[in-house]
């Protein structure tokens, strides 16, 4: 036996074609209203706001170069990492450097002469001194900064709480003494960084 409403063909459960159309319209309206909201929610859920302020590393693993700021005379660095991200550049040495008070690492690659530069900024001169001593041993030579260990292929030096290590590419024959001007240029750029308060 059929229900009276069915027989009569009325009532909300058994809508006519016109009502069905209006229901589709309502659904479309709801979808149109919800779509931008859903997009916004997804964007926020995926860290949209966070990305605006804290850029993540690009796929290569190198950090996004930040403005060199006070490092006048040097190109933008290849990497500029805070203490928490030292692993991206030095991996296993990161924890050791943090223990010595390293709070920032910057890296450059020069083409003429081909050389790699790393600059480590410490909380104080003690940390920079300790890491230089570990890398270079006790012997010091004339060179840039307040103390240095210089050879034809490398220049390690400290200026205040900043420690720099500059390595010429050994696979490239470089003119004797061609690394020293680079070291001097780096030292000039680092003076302002060394004077910056932590």
């Amino acid at each position: 036996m059929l229900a009276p409403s069915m027989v009569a063909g009325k009532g909300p459960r058994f809508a006519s074609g016109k009502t069905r159309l209006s229901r589709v319209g309502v659904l479309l309206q709801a979808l149109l209203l919800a779509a931008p909201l859903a997009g916004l929610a997804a964007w926020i859920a995926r860290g949209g706001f966070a990305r605006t302020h804290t850029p993540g590393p690009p796929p290569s693993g190198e950090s996004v170069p930040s403005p060199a700021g006070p490092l006048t005379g040097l190109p933008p660095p290849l990497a500029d990492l805070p203490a928490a991200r030292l692993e991206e550049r030095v991996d296993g040495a990161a924890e050791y450097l943090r223990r010595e008070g390293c709070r920032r690492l910057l890296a450059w690659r020069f083409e003429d002469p081909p050389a790699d530069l790393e600059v480590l900024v410490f909380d104080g001169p003690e940390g920079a001194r300790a890491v230089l001593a570990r890398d270079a041993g006790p012997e010091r030579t004339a060179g840039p900064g307040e103390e240095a260990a210089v050879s034809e292929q490398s220049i390690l030096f400290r200026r205040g709480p900043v420690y720099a290590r500059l390595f010429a590419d050994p696979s490239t024959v470089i003119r004797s003494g061609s690394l020293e001007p680079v070291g001097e240029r780096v030292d000039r750029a680092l003076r302002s960084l060394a004077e910056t308060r932590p």
Partner: protein
Amino acid sequence: MRARAERRLVLKRLAQAGVALGTTGILAALGVLSPGRWRGAKKPVPIRDHAAEPAGSGARALAVARGADPARAVRAAVDAVGGIGRFVRPGETVLLKPNMAWDRTPEQGANTHPAVVACVAALCREARAGRVIVADVPVHDAARTAERSGIRDAALAAGAEVLYPPRVGFTVAALGGSVLDHWEILSLVLEADRVINLPVVKDHALSGLTCGLKNWYGLLGGTRARLHQDIHLSIADLGAAVRPTLTVADATRVMVRGGPTGGRLEDVVIMNAVAAGTDPVAIDAWGATLLHMDPSDVPYLVLAEGRGLGSIRAGTQRLEEIHVGA
């Protein structure tokens, strides 16, 4: 009347949409919707034991060869521990894991020497391996590191493939360690029939030295910072989880200071030595002696030996070295 009903319906739909969005937002805030959560939620995959079968008579457990030609030294050392045929069978997929982490040249001794990698790849080819894959997770820019280390060209010339992320993926593996219970590891480790470890011996700021056991760090994805906070336990955990078929340690150029990154030629001592063996603890103990360290003072070696991964003594006892000439 109808207008009121439609308005009610619109409001109802909007309320439903609001509830759906609200639920999504709450789930997102709780991190339930993050892809990483679901990747991590997958059941970690066990790593198979790649260790070689026990040696027959006449084969040494550890062999050291010295000579200016790294390839000759590698061949001599591998022959002395049973020959490549003991470790690689026709048709097998062999993963070679060098240290290819640093944007440094071979002279700087930060990575495994390309001649060592190439020679082991060639040996695997001679054993008619199906695939020979050289892979690592470099710290520095991967493509540049592969090129500048010399490993890419040398390995390709020897008939191997050279892979690194993002061209290879990771799988969450069960490591079962005290620090490392599970971690993302190069999927190739799980897929390969044989895994040959090709570390370089060098100084390390935190662990004292890096050789074979520490070289497994290069298999890991994710953020490694946590591992270094308990480095000795982490290394021992990894050593227990990843058992190599063979280890060929490169001590042709040994970075004795400034590791692991190095860079100064003054810190690199040319030793022209290669060790091959199946005991990863013995190999690392041998490496420690090259850095004038007492292996018994290296915590991760003591831990690894305590877990039955090998013998420190086997790497420090008087070894009859093979000299392969100039």
